[in-house]
């Protein structure tokens, strides 16, 4: 099956440039790409704001200190970069119902939000257990040929492919 590629830049070229970006960024700052720790720091910041006593008691927030660091700005920057890139290429579009989702579940917005929320919740539990996400284990891990990276990425796909099979099993027309 041919994927929908019109209007997009080559994933090979963009991926290669991402590799160069990793190298330059690493050389300048010593930091590797990652994203899921940022969710812990954000949760810690929110808890510190609303219930400081609890936040100070939790060991995980002592291990991963709440606050804004290189990676937090990196994840925030991703959003900014994508925003301007979509604006300049006239591909910015407010939408919450992706095509493949609509084909399977219709135009139910509430359902999409419930799936997205629970998916995010489950994904981060897994990522924190595994020690990283497709950025930290996927890009940084595989690039460094880390054993943890290969184990995790294989498991990401194993879990993802199985779950996607069950989610899209019924009347899969696309």
């Amino acid at each position, binding site marked *: 099956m041919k994927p*929908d590629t019109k209007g997009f830049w080559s*994933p*090979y*070229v*963009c*991926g290669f440039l*991402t*590799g160069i970006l*990793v190298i330059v960024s*690493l050389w300048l700052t010593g*930091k590797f790409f990652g994203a899921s720790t940022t*969710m*812990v720091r954000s949760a810690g910041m929110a808890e510190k704001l609303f219930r400081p006593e609890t936040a100070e008691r*939790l*060991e*995980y927030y002592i291990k991963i200190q709440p606050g804004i660091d*290189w990676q937090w700005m990196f*994840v925030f*920057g*991703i*959003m*900014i*970069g*994508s*925003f301007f*890139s*979509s604006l300049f*290429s006239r591909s*910015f579009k407010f*939408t*919450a119902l*992706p095509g493949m989702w609509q084909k399977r579940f219709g135009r139910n917005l509430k359902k999409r939000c*419930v799936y*997205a*929320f629970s*998916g*995010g*919740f*489950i*994904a*981060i539990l*897994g990522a924190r*257990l*595994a*020690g990283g996400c*497709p*950025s930290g*284990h996927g890009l940084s891990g595989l*690039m*460094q*040929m*880390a*054993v*943890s990276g290969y184990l*995790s990425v294989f*498991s990401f796909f194993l*879990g*993802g492919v199985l*779950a996607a099979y069950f989610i899209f099993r019924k009347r899969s027309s*696309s």
Partner: protein
Amino acid sequence: MNILLYGMITGILFGMLMQRSGVCRYDAQIGLLRLKDFTVLKFMLSAVAAGMVGIYFLRDQGLIELNLKPALVAANILGGIVFGAGWALLGYCPGTASAALGEGRWDALPGMAGMVLGAAFFARLYPGLKGNLLVSGDLGKINLEQLTGINHWILIFALFILILFLFRFWQKNEK
């Protein structure tokens, strides 16, 4: 220059590359998990191929240090599978959720809210996990060279060939 500014600029460039190649779309992410569209993997493996060479070159010159995450066999595999299930429900991973939101896909917003809440929940589970599941099958911070005893440049070359073979396979199958 300020380390935070470096993070922001690196993120902006990475966000642009993901947006322009379309890898942060739900259809591309789920397309991969349904084994219908390999765009995301083409992007990832191209980055890995270029990154591997640069990282090990700089490391050999003594200019950077590797930062390997510990190989925790049980946690990596179990956590990985759980992550995959959540990924399939949401349709974005943490990095691509941020990029998706940037291009107007606001279904990433409840997804990110779920992630932050999930992280807070994990902070509660952590004391119970750190002594057992998180340390079972701990091989330490090792790479494939340390695991196999094969020189890293030979491994990089072998992975390069494997990646090229995959690219060729996908290109053939998409015609």
